[in-house]
């Protein structure tokens, strides 16, 4: 059985695509067959983060309209052969996606792949609803910041009421919290919500904490998902996320600020 995982958030710019790319590569590196689907019709970006933007010929909507087969549209990752990407279309009508035709495509993909990662668009419009509709699990990407936390809570409401699992009265979508752009230093200074605060408010299990990191921008600049930057803090944090997704218990890292200098310590900072 393929696991369908939606990476969602409500708010834009919190790291959904970065996380989708990292998780897709990470799972594939573990030997699983993974397909990453960009649901952001009209604002395709996953291809850029994955570094395959020049290889896009056909897209999701082409497949839905029968203008291309799935195999023609899927782009095989050059780094990890068990990973494929289904790009979003760039210019087409957003209403092209319906529950029926998306369902058919997911069913087809589930025959070949172990993991189907759906990169959701921001917002709570049709595109975002479509991305979460068939999900078995949801990775709710959240920044430690008021608007993001509130929007994540809205999305949790949608997962519980608007998904296929909710409509059919099946076991609810398994929710995971992925806290991104975390800055332990600012938390210690009382300027940022802590992991505990966010977990407290959203009350869903914590999947990972990704520290605010310069590696993320460098990774997107070069189209190499940050998990491949194995020496970076963010890369390591995403590797831990993969372990946890696969059922391992891994201690959380990067939750405390780096050791302070002797002066600040002397003055009790």
């Amino acid at each position, binding site marked *: 059985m393929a696991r369908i995982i939606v990476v969602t958030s409500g708010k834009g710019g919190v790291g959904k695509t970065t996380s989708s790319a990292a998780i897709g590569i990470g799972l594939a590196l573990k030997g699983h067959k993974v397909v990453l689907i960009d649901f952001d019709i009209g604002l395709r970006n996953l291809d850029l983060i994955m570094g395959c933007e020049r290889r896009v010929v056909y897209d999701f909507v082409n497949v839905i309209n029968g203008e291309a087969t799935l195999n023609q549209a899927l782009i095989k990752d050059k780094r990890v052969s068990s990973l494929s990407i289904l790009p979003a279309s760039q210019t087409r009508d957003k209403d092209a996606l319906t529950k029926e035709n998306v369902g058919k495509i997911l069913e087809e993909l589930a025959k070949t792949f172990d993991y189907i990662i759906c990169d959701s668009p921001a917002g709570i419009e049709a595109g975002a609803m479509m991305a979460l509709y068939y999900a078995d699990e949801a990775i709710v990407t959240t920044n430690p910041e008021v608007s993001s936390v*509130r929007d994540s809570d809205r999305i949790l409401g949608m997962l519980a009421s608007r998904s296929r699992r909710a409509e059919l009265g099946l076991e609810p979508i398994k929710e995971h919290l992925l806290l991104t752009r975390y800055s332990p230093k600012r938390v210690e200074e009382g300027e940022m919500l802590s992991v505990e605060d966010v977990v407290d*408010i959203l009350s869903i299990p914590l999947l990972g904490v990704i520290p605010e990191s310069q590696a993320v921008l460098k990774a997107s600049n070069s189209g190499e998902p940050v998990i491949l930057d194995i020496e970076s803090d963010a890369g390591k944090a995403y590797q831990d996320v993969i372990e946890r997704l696969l059922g391992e218990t891994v201690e959380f890292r990067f939750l405390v600020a780096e050791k302070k200098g002797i002066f600040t310590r002397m003055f009790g900072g």
Partner: protein
Amino acid sequence: MALLDYFLQKKEKQVTTAFKAKERLQIIVAHERTCRNKQPDYLPQLTEDILNVLRKYIKVSDESFSINLDKKEGNLNVLELNIELHDEKSRD
């Protein structure tokens, strides 16, 4: 001077902005969750209609009447009516 500022600031830091953020979020999120689980749109009209029918036969004040739609496990919904009947004497 910077050192002095530092210590003064430290004292004022009792209520951090992160603390404020958490408080505000807890309130708004709790509020939005109750709205989210709100009753369906038809419920006010249904209440009105049921009351009108009841009042053809018995005296029912707004306070002695309550209606509730509860979601149980799975697909089961329970519509609960609670009507307090007053003494016959007070009926007239």
